[in-house]
């Protein structure tokens, strides 16, 4: 397909808008790559398009909308004297204002409480910036400490639970798991599972941990201790 300079100029927008066929596009490119007249034109127009697409909308002056509304709907009524006061009071009574005020008061109360202000015994000294800072710092550290303690407690409980689960999975008695006359009995092997020392150690370990937990959190550990003791009583 042969392509001329006139065609390049006439179809430039089609090329830039991407609405040419692949054959036309190929011929266009081939011509522009070799034509000294068309190459700078294509480059400058595509640069112009990029620039124009990057240009942003201009913000009209804010008075424009009001000027249009004044011209079309007529000037807005400006209230004076007691009417203005009445309109103001009516504005305060609106639901939106009430919600706004309520949320502001709640936010303020939260901040003041966090800053260590005692509502039951309000003191002027509590409102001093250094006292507010100290109280807020103390509250933040307390909250952090409590949080850390809670996380550690959870970790201990989780560990104990997993240990107990492990123990319950290990067979506790010889009779229950291994038959008396095992067909797989082989010479030179002691019969049955090895007894007590290892299991006993584990049980003792768990009991020790439970005792520690009971000291820290009696309400959490008590049922397990009772259960574990009952279990140990049942053990041969």
């Amino acid at each position: 397909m042969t392509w001329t300079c006139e065609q390049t100029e006439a179809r430039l927008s089609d090329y830039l808008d991407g609405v040419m066929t692949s054959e036309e596009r190929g011929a266009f490119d081939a011509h522009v790559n070799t034509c000294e007249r068309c190459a700078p034109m294509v480059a400058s127009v595509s640069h112009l398009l990029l620039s124009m697409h990057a240009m942003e909308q201009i913000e009209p002056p804010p008075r424009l909308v009001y000027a249009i509304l004044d011209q079309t709907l007529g000037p807005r009524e400006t209230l004076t004297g007691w009417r203005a006061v009445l309109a103001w009071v009516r504005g305060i009574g609106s639901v939106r204002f009430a919600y706004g005020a309520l949320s502001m008061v709640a936010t303020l109360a939260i901040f003041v409480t966090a800053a260590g202000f005692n509502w039951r015994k309000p003191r002027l000294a509590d409102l001093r910036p250094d006292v507010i800072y100290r109280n807020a710092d103390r509250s933040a550290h307390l909250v952090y400490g409590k949080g850390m303690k809670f996380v550690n407690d959870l970790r201990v409980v989780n560990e104990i639970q997993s240990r107990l689960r492990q123990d319950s999975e290990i067979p506790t008695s010889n009779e229950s798991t291994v038959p008396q006359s095992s067909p797989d009995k082989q010479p030179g092997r002691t019969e049955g599972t090895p007894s007590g020392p290892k299991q006993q150690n584990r049980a003792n370990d768990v009991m020790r941990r439970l005792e520690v937990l009971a000291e820290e959190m009696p309400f959490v550990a008590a049922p397990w201790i009772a259960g574990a003791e009952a279990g140990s009583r049942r053990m041969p």
Partner: protein
Amino acid sequence: MEQDAQLVQQCLQGDGSAWEELVRRHSRRIFNICYRFTGNGAEAEDLSQEVFLRVYRTVGSYRSAHGGFATWVTSVTRNLLIDHYRRTKRDRQTDSLDDAMPVVENKESAGRRPDEQVLLGELSSQVQTALKKLSPELREAVILRDLQQLEYVEIQHVLAVPEGTVKSRINRGRIELARILQQMGVRPS
């Protein structure tokens, strides 16, 4: 678009707040078209007011079946701009371009570095100056297509000319504008 048609209906029933909403929705776009066409902030403001005054008076003649409200308002704007161009042709011949009062462009868009913003601002004012040197037919076509991102069909409705004419004007407008910018010493980077 449907919301516009609904607002127009409410407007025709005498709802002032619906009219206010329509003004708020379209005033920025109309102001931008006027500013790009005239290159003068004060003129663009006056023309935008005139556009909405005319729209307010003739909104009863708008039919949603014939196209969107935005296209209709744009065609009202275009007619007013051409009237304004003809009216001020003699004044313009005696005025210099330097008298134009430029508007501070909103370049504080997020994600652009300050140096990019400066470059864009400079380029934008150069394009604006070049636009004023373009004939009104080509200028309006380029503004609607490349600055307002209207589709060819919408431009066809606004200018009330066949599609071929729209395409030809946009193409010639772009080439001519690039040529003017080259003459102004702006080279593609």
